């Protein structure tokens, strides 16, 4: 699973996701991509599950790029612990995704395979996404 090698601070605020993506909204590597259409927090586990769904579907051909990185730690308190006594320990990592962000890119496979692979991967994600293609290559 993806996680930062080291961080400046161990714990982060929860934050809110406002606005639209400012960068990473166009395809940079592959011919097909998966674009977020709503904001959300995607965990490293969900990214890995989606990546596996794509790689399993396209089998030995093609290439996948992951365009988001889970760099925000999420902490939680253990069960049956009274409130107070500080913030809990970091449990997992999330990526904050804004609408418009390209999350995955894919190349080297036919368009139908790419579409199907992204449909399977989208089922692993907590936000709704859209299939996108390079400009001028739409059928």
């Amino acid at each position: 699973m993806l996680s930062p090698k080291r961080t400046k601070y161990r714990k982060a605020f929860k934050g809110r996701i406002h606005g639209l993506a400012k960068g990473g909204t166009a395809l940079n590597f592959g011919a097909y991509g998966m674009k977020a259409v709503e904001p959300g927090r995607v965990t490293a586990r969900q990214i890995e599950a989606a990546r596996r769904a794509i790689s399993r579907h396209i089998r030995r051909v093609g290439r996948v790029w992951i365009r988001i990185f889970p760099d925000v730690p999420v902490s939680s308190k253990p069960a049956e612990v009274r409130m107070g006594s500080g913030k809990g320990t970091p449990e997992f990592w999330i990526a904050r995704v804004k609408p418009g962000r390209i999350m995955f890119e894919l190349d080297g496979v036919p368009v139908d395979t790419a579409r199907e692979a992204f449909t399977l991967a989208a089922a692993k994600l907590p936000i709704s996404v859209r299939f996108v293609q390079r400009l001028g290559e739409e059928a």
Partner: protein
Amino acid sequence: MSEIIVLEAEARDRAGKGAARATRRAGRIPAVLYGDKKEPVMLSLDPKLFGRQLHKPGFFSHLFDLNIDGTKHRALPRDVQLHPVTDEPLHVDFVRVTAHTKTHVNVPVHFENHLASPGLKRGGVLNVVRHDIELSVSADSIPERIDVDLTGLEIGDSVHISAIKLPAGAHPVIADRDFTIATIAAPTVKTDETAAEGEAAAV
């Protein structure tokens, strides 16, 4: 040479984001035509007609004849701003050209003879490094596309710009090095997955 596309446009009088937004509210796409040492002209385009051209291959390497209220202006699309979520065009830039204007254009690369490449047959992946190549070319001889022949390429082979026969008068803008257009890579997905599965089994 690529064909010249005729596109209907209407002139608009005001510049700025307020005017551009008003144009969008009216159901049209704001655009601008500039260059050739003349005054810029603000335009608006029909989204349906423009969208049809935008989604054709090689949009940026096609010459346009903009029919602005009866007068024709030859232009090249320079930039298209897209909405980050919906990918609808928000604004279009056109630059005026004459037949002898030397210009920089991104020409799409087209790969052919996939089946004649032993590397691709053995499961290799065509890793496209550049989907289009920026050429310095005169406006009347912009090529439709650049064909790259994959015949005989093995896994690990790559196609460089020196191997491509460009049309007469066209030069790549990157002239200081023999840059790569595509490589035939070993399938990375398989190794990736086995590694991930090994990792999962170890946990």
